[in-house]
């Protein structure tokens, strides 16, 4: 099961006006040995609501450093907090690195990689680019980096330094939406048409082994279409959709229908392995989560309503099961529910995991 571990913030550095690079150090356990292109999922409570946010690691594997880039999103509670209030010495909670936005590296190979990044989509691509150039001394990397203007380019100086360090192996093409550049091709949006033009004049697409794309949805679609059109297959195109357009994982709002009990909480009684426990729970919490929170070792596996491991029987009161892909109709009629999908409706609910 995914667990959160504390990480100590060792450094917070501004890279552009509204983005910070946060350095972290594991404080108590967890395997934070990451692969290039992976991300960390953080959690934090804002006004009593837990928010989870994922940010890509921007450090190279061999940097010996855990670093994420966090760009401030309008109205984004977590990113605003990270940009304005986060200080060295603070503690953040994160799950171990996850994600599969990478391909295995092999120092004996001479491969040609192509990366596309839009805005803060640069973070995982930067990690991939640095790790790859260091680990595969004969490989090349071409980065097409889309930004609104010069002053929104994250890691601009670092990329310049890398170009010097890996002269002849790293090519960076900045495409700016609103700032005019010497070459017309490098102005505008990176879409299928722009890619086709780049492939005609600047990038020999026939030599590319793997392409990485990280950016907003329309950009990814356009680039992927152009890559497929130019002969790359799905296995050669790696995507990472970053979280800009993501709605927060907010708690489920209690639906107010005529039949619901008046209270916001429910008196719950849960029977497991022969013993019954009672507690007060919120109506916007699932029966399973409330049981787990009250130290009841309730069974579950998928938590998505698909595996029925969390099945229990409602003996008293009523719950609303918001998804069910596992229970047959006759089981539901007998009062069985998936506890991971069930929210209390009445002010008192009695469930039994033993039946």
């Amino acid at each position, binding site marked *: 099961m995914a667990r959160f571990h504390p990480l100590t913030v060792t450094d917070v550095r501004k890279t552009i006006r509204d983005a910070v690079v946060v350095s972290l150090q594991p404080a108590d356990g967890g395997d934070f040995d990451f692969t290039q292109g992976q991300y960390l999922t953080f959690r934090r409570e804002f006004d009593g609501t837990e928010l989870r946010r994922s940010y890509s690691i921007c450090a190279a594997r061999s940097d010996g450093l855990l670093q994420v880039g966090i760009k401030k999103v309008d109205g984004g509670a977590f990113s605003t907090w990270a940009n304005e209030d986060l200080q060295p010495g603070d503690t953040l909670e994160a799950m171990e690195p996850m994600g599969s936005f990478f391909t295995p590296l092999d120092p004996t190979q001479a491969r040609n990689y192509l990366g596309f990044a839009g805005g803060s989509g640069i973070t995982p691509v930067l990690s991939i680019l640095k790790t790859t150039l260091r680990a595969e001394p004969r490989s090349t990397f071409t980065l097409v980096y889309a930004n609104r203007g010069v002053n929104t380019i994250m890691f601009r100086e670092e990329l310049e330094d890398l170009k010097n360090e890996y002269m002849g192996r790293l090519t960076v093409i900045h495409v700016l939406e609103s700032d005019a550049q010497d070459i017309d091709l490098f102005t505008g949006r990176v879409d299928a048409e722009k890619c086709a033009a780049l492939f005609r004049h600047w990038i020999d697409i026939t030599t590319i082994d793997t392409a990485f794309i990280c950016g907003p949805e329309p950009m990814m679609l356009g680039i992927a279409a152009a890559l497929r059109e130019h002969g790359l297959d799905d296995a050669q195109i*790696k995507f990472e959709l970053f979280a800009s357009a993501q709605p927060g994982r907010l708690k489920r709002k209690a639906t107010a229908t005529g039949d619901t009990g008046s209270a916001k909480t429910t008196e719950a009684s849960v029977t497991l392995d022969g013993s019954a426990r009672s507690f007060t729970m919120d109506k916007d919490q699932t029966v399973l989560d409330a049981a787990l929170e009250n130290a009841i070792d309730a069974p579950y596996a998928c938590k998505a309503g698909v595996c029925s491991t969390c099945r229990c029987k409602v003996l008293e009161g009523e719950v609303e099961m918001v998804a069910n892909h596992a229970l047959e109709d006759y089981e539901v009629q007998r009062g069985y529910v998936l506890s991971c999908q069930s929210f209390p409706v009445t002010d008192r609910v009695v469930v039994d995991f033993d039946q």
Partner: protein
Amino acid sequence: MAEDMSIESYLSQGGKLSNPTNVPPRYRAELMKMMATFVDSELAGAAGFADVINAGPGIKERIAAAKIVLEKTDNADAVLRLLGEFGADTARYATSHPWTSRLPRDSEIGSRRSEHDMRLSVLNYPLDGWVDAVTMNLCMGLAVGQQLGELQQVSYQPLADAIRRVAPIETRHVELAEEGLARLVEQGQSDAIKASVAYWRPRVEPMFGDVPQERFEQLRNWGLRHRSNGELGASWNAQLDKSLDRLDLTA
């Protein structure tokens, strides 16, 4: 760059998702169901085959059976790990179901799943000795191949990637089945094989049962499905016929 586009619209245009955090709830449920089905089927398939290793008539056959058990378990692990990224308790998951349990051979199961796990319904039928096991492996392996073709195209990229790694291994299992059957044919077991095919074919077929059109369209819009079950079933039947033809078992 921040042009707004809904995840649904992105997916319907062929967009890929890359991690659990940007997966909408309903999509998540359907995706997890697909992953759980794969994991449970591999685990149940491996468990069923583990029981017949010792029924193998020779050392080669036993090696093949043991290899299949190992690799199917390995393949389950590859996808179970992805389920873990969605919060599933993978350790508990792998041991929470009695994977070796089967129903009586003459049960009427159809396409219903068992109460406890997501294994494909056909995997609730027991194997009946070596010939039956190898025959089932061919029928089922070809059917799984059709489904893996679908899964390689799913819009959840980590799953598509995992399946791309797994697919050649599963293809090899089908080849082992056909090679095994060829040896059994040489040993004069053709009639027993034909009887097994007659048993398994209609029991594998429900895998390609009808999905309500509305639901299929929803799954297709999400990039979770591409070809209809009808197409997949027809393709499976044709492959199985070809294979039986090569083995001289059609007459």
